[in-house]
């Protein structure tokens, strides 16, 4: 058994950490407060290679392994959840499905722009009536000659309505399967297609510097070449995409937990009450010890799930476990971190309150904690 990262993985961690500290940390609070998505920062993240990390160089990807990608998300999340969201959704939801299921032409057309970080892409699955239950979807696509005509709407779609958005992948019902259930197919919709509208959603509690959109499809006509994979592949594509996406959301929990813990440990050592550092009080020290232990557990679980994926072995159960554990862990750690900061922890100046808010999405996005428990319980034979 070998727990060492490769030299490249270690370098990625170091470089991303440095980048996050220098380029993201100084502006994260302000972007959050203004609820502002920064194209400038996103492009900078693209320049160092944070998009298309697991995509082959043939499409201008970085040609790295999955663990490197997860480490990069973790390091960004250690500083800021919003930017980590842009990266995680950009790679796992935007680039991933095009790369894994797209035709050669589709890949040539879109991936180079997405991998360089010049443009972003959304993945539209969730609908107002279909969250955990994809069966509630109402968006349809109907064949008309050589085209498909899409009608419906999507909600909460990351990276889908900013000035860098090039288009979205959208899942629609294209018929009924033999077993009576709806047949799903994914389509590529470019942003300027007539009838398509993407509207940014505001007033979020968390990920305030990440772009979230509502999508409207009003007789949106796309050529049949815009189908992703084959007709009826949509459900399978979604499951595969979410399995990978879970790892990236999980690594945001892991990185966020580490970031909140780092802040708490430093503060606890600096803050003096009753004539000593509060880190000397057992009540505080034990909280920090628990955080350190759980972060260690979380990292091992997360990297193991990534390793399984890298080795092309089944990883669905471990991905669900890692997503669930890391997300909930960040909740516990951020809670302790605010508590350790006392009143200052509630003030924006001290950053931990941002971790505390940003965490909540992780219990909900890409399969809620309840859904992860359903997935795990199925895998263990309940």
């Amino acid at each position: 058994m070998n727990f060492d990262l490769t030299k490249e993985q270690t370098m990625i961690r170091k470089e991303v950490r440095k980048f996050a500290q220098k380029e993201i940390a100084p502006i994260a609070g302000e972007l959050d407060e203004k609820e502002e998505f920064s194209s400038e920062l996103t492009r900078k993240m693209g320049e160092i290679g944070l998009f298309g990390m697991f995509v082959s160089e043939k499409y201008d990807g970085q040609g790295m392994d999955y663990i490197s990608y997860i480490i990069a998300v973790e390091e960004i999340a250690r500083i800021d959840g919003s930017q980590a969201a842009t990266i995680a959704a950009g790679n796992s939801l935007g680039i991933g499905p095009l790369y894994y299921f797209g035709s050669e032409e589709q890949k040539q057309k879109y991936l180079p722009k997405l991998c360089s970080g010049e443009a972003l892409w959304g993945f539209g699955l969730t609908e107002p009536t279909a969250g955990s239950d994809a069966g509630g979807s109402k968006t349809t696509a109907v064949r008309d000659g050589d085209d498909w005509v899409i009608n419906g709407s999507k909600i909460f779609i990351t990276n889908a309505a900013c000035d860098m958005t090039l288009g979205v992948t959208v899942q629609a019902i294209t018929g009924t399967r033999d077993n009576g259930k709806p047949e799903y197919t994914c389509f590529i919709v470019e942003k300027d297609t007539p009838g398509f509208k993407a509207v940014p959603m505001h007033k979020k509690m968390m990920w305030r510097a990440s772009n979230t959109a509502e999508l409207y499809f009003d007789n949106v006509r796309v050529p049949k070449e815009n189908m992703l994979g084959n007709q009826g592949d949509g459900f399978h594509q979604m499951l595969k995409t979410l399995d990978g996406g879970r790892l990236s959301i999980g690594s945001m929990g892991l990185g966020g937990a580490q970031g909140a813990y780092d802040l708490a440990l430093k503060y606890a050592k600096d803050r003096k009450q009753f004539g000593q550092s509060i880190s000397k009080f057992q009540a505080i020290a034990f909280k920090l010890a628990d955080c350190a232990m759980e972060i260690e557990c979380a990292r091992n679980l997360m990297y193991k799930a990534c390793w399984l994926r890298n080795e092309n072995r089944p990883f669905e159960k471990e991905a669900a476990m890692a997503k669930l554990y890391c997300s909930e862990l960040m909740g516990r750690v951020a809670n302790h971190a605010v508590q350790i900061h006392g009143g200052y922890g509630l003030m924006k100046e001290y950053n931990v309150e941002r971790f505390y808010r940003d965490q909540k999405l992780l219990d909900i996005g890409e399969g809620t904690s309840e859904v992860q428990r359903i997935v795990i319980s199925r895998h263990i034979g309940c």
Partner: protein
Amino acid sequence: MNIVVLMKQVPDTEAPVEIAESNVAIDTEDTKWAINPYDEFSLEEALLIKEAKGDSKVTLVTVGPDHVAEAIRVAYAMGVDEAIHINDEIDDEVYGAVDPHTTAAIIAAALKDVPFDLIIAGQRAVDDDSYLVPALVANKLNLPIISLVTKQETTDTEINCVQSIDGGTAVVKAALPALITTQKGINEPRYPNFRAIMKAKKKKVDERELEDIGLDPENFGINGAKVKIRSMEFPPERGQGKIIEGSSPAEKAKILVNLLKEEASVI
């Protein structure tokens, strides 16, 4: 144009350092290492010159033990063409380069068979802060040196530099070959791109030992050092600040001036 960059790997300034038991060195057991920040400026400047001129080559020269390999990979990922690593480990814990003099002698010897028009070094290394190595190298190679450069323009035969001096700047030029040292502000070092990190994996390092560059290890390390560290200690912790009490700002100012005169003797 052939550009040589001198690079040193130093303890990461973000990470805490501990003094070793010997009391004359820092404990490097768990040290996190990084490229000396001023050398990042040198690397960036060399790459900028190469990109502007085309048809140039950037060669990195570094002295240090095995773990310097990590810094070399970063330099490769930034875009350096070739790296020469003088591994100065003589005998496990004994190193060849132990003071500015030994370091400069090793670098000068290594540069004997390396063609160069320009050598760029950091103004100082942030670990030992001696400020001496670039000047000693220039002296040994009989080169003009321009230190603390914040801007340069290089033709095939000469280099024009803006140099920061106390209270202002000076414009200085020298004929090539020459050595310059970089000052903060000269550029913003690039982040190595991930793809370049992967490519750096395949690049070879030209690793040499002291004998390979014609030096006798006997004359290096503690035998060759002109400066010997006798002991190390941390700077004293900063004392508590003082809050001046007084009934009015004018009174407080008066007390302050008095204290600055009498107690701190700074005015």
